[in-house]
């Protein structure tokens, strides 16, 4: 199967670039980021708030089947240009990971294909590497900083 999602992470840099081509018109790809109900479906999280405008903000929350909140994330949206660009911050609450800055660019390739480029900038090289090393930590929200302890053991 063709690998459509590419992750480019250079050693020693505090950023990564994720690219993906979709068999979707640009407008539909953008809609998947714009419509809270659709975001909830593909991200697998509840969307508490999504203000698609300059200086807007958003909040996600995920609960386990028993109703306990296991993940919360939020951010602000410095830039929102329909069918073109979303710039936003992303912060996982109650985790040791610092806020990250995400630049999302949406491009038309053909009438029914489009491309997303997601450029993520982290606080430091170390912060980036920790996130990359613990992909399974994404989606888990933790009290007691247990995550930090795992991260420390990995160093």
């Amino acid at each position, binding site marked *: 199967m063709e690998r459509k999602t590419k992750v480019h992470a250079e050693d020693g840099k505090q950023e990564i670039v994720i690219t993906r081509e979709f068999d979707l018109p640009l407008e539909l790809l953008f*809609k998947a980021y714009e419509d809270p109900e659709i975001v909830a*479906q593909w991200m697998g999280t509840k969307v508490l708030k999504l203000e698609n405008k300059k200086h807007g903000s958003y909040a996600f929350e995920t609960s386990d089947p028993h109703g306990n909140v296991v993940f919360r994330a939020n951010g602000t949206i410095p830039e929102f240009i329909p069918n073109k660009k979303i710039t936003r911050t992303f912060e996982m609450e109650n985790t040791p990971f610092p806020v990250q800055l995400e630049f999302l660019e949406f491009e038309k390739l053909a009438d029914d294909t489009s491309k997303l480029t997601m450029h993520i900038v982290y606080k430091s090289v170390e912060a980036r590497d920790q996130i990359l090393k613990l992909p399974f930590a994404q989606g888990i929200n933790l009290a007691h900083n247990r995550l930090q302890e*795992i991260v420390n053991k990995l160093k």
Partner: protein
Amino acid sequence: MNLRRDVFQAIADPTRRAILILVASQSMTAGAIASNFDTARPTVSKHLQILTECELLEQAQNGREIYYHINAKKMKEVADFIEPFRNMWDDRFNKLEALMKNYKPGR
């Protein structure tokens, strides 16, 4: 047997990830681990067995009790790969694509 694949399968399960996080800070008995979950005890035992088999957890006998602790070395080995991170996004984007292919404007 493809051990690496097994490790990734092991951490694909949310309960098993929660167990790893739980024992990261301290060694715990199976009973103590199970008390953190609403899941039935045998289910938790099964998860512990899988995590132990792929060496993410190690067992240590202390008197009559068996304690589980995290195998930091193995965790690092897993962590060194960028592939799980890529997979996470690939899964999300596949969902997005499938969803939007069936999208019908509502109004």
